């Protein structure tokens, strides 16, 4: 009897995550641990944790971690990566963190083209604090602070922050993926591998936006939440490659 799916090396053993049943964070944590192992960078990896549900990611990933203030993940990652260029720096952030309170840090770290990787978990609500409306909330989506649905006249439109930073010349790689289907999970792993390789080669900023189900705050079952990601959320935030400037950056470097 051979175990086909070995426990990832950089995922702590004997832990059960605090995430709700069907949450996408667990899948993304596992993918990060697997890719760190495959690319053999786990020993020098440093994860910057956000404020949000993933605040306790250091309980699950067996790598070095710094806890950041709300939204300041990429600012801390910048400091770490500039002070110690040998480290492999990942900033793990949610949509309330990266696209609301941390917009300034996100925009400017991307514009400077820092050599860091950002994993952006987009679930269209503030998850940890109880499902309030986030900048990424879809139009007409009900949340605890928009019970009648998001109204464009009152609250504006969903913010496509990854599309914004993808336009910057400093951003070498940006992709949007989902973890709501097995095919999407495969693509997520591919995208995270590409993003990590971008940083290993020193080509600049890489960002992967992951559309992730949040069954508890969407008041759905895990399965309905996955369907909602595919049917509703993917229409507003279209998965796919947003920018790939790795080839020209390689030429510039050579």
């Amino acid at each position: 009897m051979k175990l086909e799916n070995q426990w990832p090396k950089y995922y702590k053993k004997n832990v059960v995550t605090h995430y709700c049943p069907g949450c996408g964070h667990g899948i993304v944590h596992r993918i990060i641990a697997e890719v760190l192992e495959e690319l053999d960078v786990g020993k020098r990896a440093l994860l910057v944790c956000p404020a949000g549900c993933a605040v306790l990611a250091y309980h699950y990933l067996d790598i070095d971690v710094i806890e950041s203030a709300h939204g300041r993940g990429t600012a801390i990652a910048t400091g770490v990566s500039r002070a110690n260029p040998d480290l492999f720096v990942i900033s793990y952030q949610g949509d309330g963190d990266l696209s609301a309170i941390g917009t300034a840090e996100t925009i400017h770290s991307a514009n400077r083209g820092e050599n860091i990787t950002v994993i952006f978990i987009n679930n269209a609500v503030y998850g940890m604090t109880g499902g309030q409306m986030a900048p990424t909330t879809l139009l007409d989506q009900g949340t605890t602070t928009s019970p009648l649905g998001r109204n464009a006249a009152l609250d504006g439109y969903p913010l496509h922050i990854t599309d914004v930073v993808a336009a910057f010349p400093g951003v070498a790689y940006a992709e949007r993926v989902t973890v709501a289907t097995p095919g999407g999970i495969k693509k997520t792993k591919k995208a995270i591998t590409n993003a990590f390789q971008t940083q290993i080669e020193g080509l600049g900023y890489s960002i992967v936006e992951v559309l992730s189900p949040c069954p508890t705050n969407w008041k759905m079952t895990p399965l309905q939440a996955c369907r909602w990601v595919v049917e509703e959320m993917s229409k507003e935030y279209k998965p796919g490659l947003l920018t790939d400037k790795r080839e020209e950056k390689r030429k510039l470097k050579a």
Partner: protein
Amino acid sequence: MSKKDKVFTVKIRRDYCKGCGLCIEFCKQDVLQASANMNSMGYHYAEPAQPESCIGCMICTMVCPDLAVEVYSE
């Protein structure tokens, strides 16, 4: 030995499972089902209903957010 000649066995780490049901839904072979019993966290964990139908596609291990599924081959 090719994948076709292997025999696959699915096991669930019972106390890791939160009963989200994604593995049950995404399994094309209907190998898994929700148990009538509960685990230590009070969730109806997944359990193999037809273990002999498993073809080793590993989709259950991929969609599980909690690393609760183990697939063995022999």
